[in-house]
């Protein structure tokens, strides 16, 4: 008897598992239904971000009279979570998406245009609106953004009698002079992932290079800067393997006098009160160039769930998260820059440590601005070329041609 039961249970559980795949479909929502809860998916799983974002979400939930069910996943798992939810028709009402991925997900037809609900991006910085729009339609809004700049150890620079470099020549020179047996002059990430490409963009864009023409001399010149810094011994060859987190660790450990990094590292740096540091804008190659760095940050989107009333409330929720008050709140607490340009002067005055980043954000560009959904291909070619040049397998001028072939 027990034996038979066991078999029957096994059969039943298989049948259940198979049936479960097709559940939760159908049953249309009344467009005028009262919406009492919104489900939310995001990747702010680390503290203090998790709590700080929760505070903003709660404020907007109270305003709209809804309760929230929030799911937080690690950053690396977000896309697979979204795909899994999409294939089982269980997308959340409000979904956070990293800005370079918004176009791809919108192109797949997963997101509702915010314009349908009267939500616009008037007064937002054009760079980030570019990243969250596709074919003229707005699919997401990022309350705050960030970028990367030159962070430096003020004591080491003072000791060597060096001012923060403003040109590439000064950067090469400063990095060389700041290199001692104990530490390198500069640290950055040139690893074999999109992170390595992202860190290269300030040099490439500021010098007039462009992802639409990676074989241009301007791009090669930018790669020459990276190669020089490593070959003259001012940066460790380990940059080939470092993440931005590793770069921050090197800086904190006093093993690098300068680093290329973003304001999301502030809370980690502040844990070391003995470490004295400051931020300068990324240097230009030639006077007259405009510092152009990439925009980071996440957008809030409204997936198409087939529930018209929930989607409408979700769009209002996204608008609320992007209200001037919420933007300032997120910016102040999470060390990021508001995307409403009229808030920038007030923000820079209030949070002086963010001044350099705020200045750069005004001219910053979105990674997917020009290439849209084919940006990942360019980013792959970029980190491949950087790695070829930094391992002396290719010259900076040849690297992008060689990367293109592989």
């Amino acid at each position, binding site marked *: 008897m027990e*034996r038979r039961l066991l078999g029957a249970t096994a059969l039943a559980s298989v049948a259940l598992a198979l049936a479960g795949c097709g559940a939760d479909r159908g049953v249309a929502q009344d467009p005028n239904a009262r919406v009492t809860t919104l489900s939310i998916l995001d990747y702010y799983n680390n503290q203090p971000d998790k709590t700080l974002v929760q505070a903003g979400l709660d404020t907007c939930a109270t305003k709209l009279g809804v309760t929230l069910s929030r799911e937080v996943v690690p950053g690396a798992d977000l896309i697979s979570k979204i795909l899994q939810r999409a*294939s089982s028709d269980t997308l959340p009402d409000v979904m956070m998406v990293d800005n370079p991925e918004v176009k791809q997900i919108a192109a797949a037809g997963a997101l509702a245009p915010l314009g349908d609900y009267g939500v616009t991006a008037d007064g937002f910085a054009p760079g980030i609106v570019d990243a969250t729009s596709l074919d003229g339609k707005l699919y997401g809004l990022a309350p705050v953004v960030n970028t990367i700049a030159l962070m430096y150890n003020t004591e080491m620079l003072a000791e060597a009698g060096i001012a923060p470099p403003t040109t590439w020549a000064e950067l090469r020179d400063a990095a060389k002079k700041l290199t001692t047996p104990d530490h390198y002059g500069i640290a950055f990430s040139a690893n074999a992932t999109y992170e390595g490409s992202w860190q290269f963009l300030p040099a490439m864009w500021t010098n007039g290079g462009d992802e639409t023409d990676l074989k241009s001399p301007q791009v090669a010149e930018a790669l020459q800067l990276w190669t020089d810094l490593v070959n003259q011994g001012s940066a460790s060859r380990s940059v080939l393997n470092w993440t931005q987190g590793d770069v921050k660790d090197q800086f904190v450990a006093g093993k690098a006098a300068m680093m290329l990094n973003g304001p999301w590292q502030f809370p980690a740096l502040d844990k070391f009160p003995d470490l004295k540091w400051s931020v300068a804008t990324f240097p230009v190659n030639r006077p007259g160039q405009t510092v152009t760095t990439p925009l980071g940050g996440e957008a809030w989107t409204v997936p198409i769930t087939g529930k018209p009333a929930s989607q409408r409330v979700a769009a209002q929720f996204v608008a609320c998260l992007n209200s001037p008050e919420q933007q300032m709140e997120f910016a102040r607490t999470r060390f990021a820059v508001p995307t409403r340009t009229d808030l920038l002067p007030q923000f820079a005055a209030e949070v002086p440590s963010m001044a350099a980043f705020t200045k750069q954000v005004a001219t910053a560009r979105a990674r997917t601005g020009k290439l849209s959904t084919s940006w990942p291909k360019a980013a*792959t070619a970029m980190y491949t070329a950087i790695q070829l040049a930094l391992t002396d397998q290719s010259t900076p001028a040849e690297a992008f041609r060689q990367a293109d072939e*592989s």
Partner: protein
Amino acid sequence: MTQTSTVAPTEILVPDVTTSVDSTRRRERLAQLMFIVPAALVLLALFGYPIVKNVVMSLQAYDLRTFFTGEAPFVGLANYVEVMSSRLFSRAMVNTALFTVGSIVGQFVIGMALAVFFRKKFPLSGTLRALLLLPWLLPMIASSAAWRAILEQDSGILNKTLRGMGLIDSPIPWLTSPSVALVAVIMVNIWIGIPFNVTLLYSGLQDIPEELYEAGALDGATGWKAFWHITLPNLRAVVSVVLVLGVVYTLKVLDIILGLTHGGPANATQTLATQSYERSFVDFEFGQGAALSNVLIVISLVFALVYLRVNRRAIED
């Protein structure tokens, strides 16, 4: 059975027995089926379905879009052409071969040496043998992070130690030179694979009767000779299992490489597994990723067949 009057008991018993044998047999058959069906269904659902799905996927334009629209147009062998004509494919093939051969040789030789060593009982030998299992117990992601720190070029403990001992003048670029990185990754994978080899080989050694060595010693077979002529021949079945399973496990190694180098520097540590991962979960070209993983499955299958053959021969012996 109760009516035991004039008829001989056997005459009644005979037909009775056959029917009861029949029904017992039928019931047994049913019970057998009940045992097999759930297992067969689980096998079909958990092994059959993914493999079929993977083959189908490799023939489709299966990308990010597919998850939202459900559309995955049939493209024939286009995904296979795409991944195999890539310049990275031949590089990944060579790296996969080097990585597998290097790892297996290293793991096996060191594993065998340690297994033979632990055959001798000495104080704490049990504890030491248990400690050897440690690499196996650690989560792969944790050990690769630890090794990344150990192999760090400037401040890593390995280079510091080697320099302190005066063995090297300048730091070895373990993970940052294209010519060294693959060696470093193989080294770490050998470290991870040793426990598996030691455990199986050690248990194999336990089955070799001590008398063989005693008899061999009388004929002058000691040390290397004993190992060559007594240990190895008696260990043949275990050795073949260890080697073939080792190859199959090593072919699909992904987390160690991603953790240590992410396929870099300059693609020096790209293998079929990392390429397949990248195409599927970074480029979201699931069709191409599936095509590559099918190539990997076919290679593994060849070794699995070798294993089955060797195993059958070993049983027949």
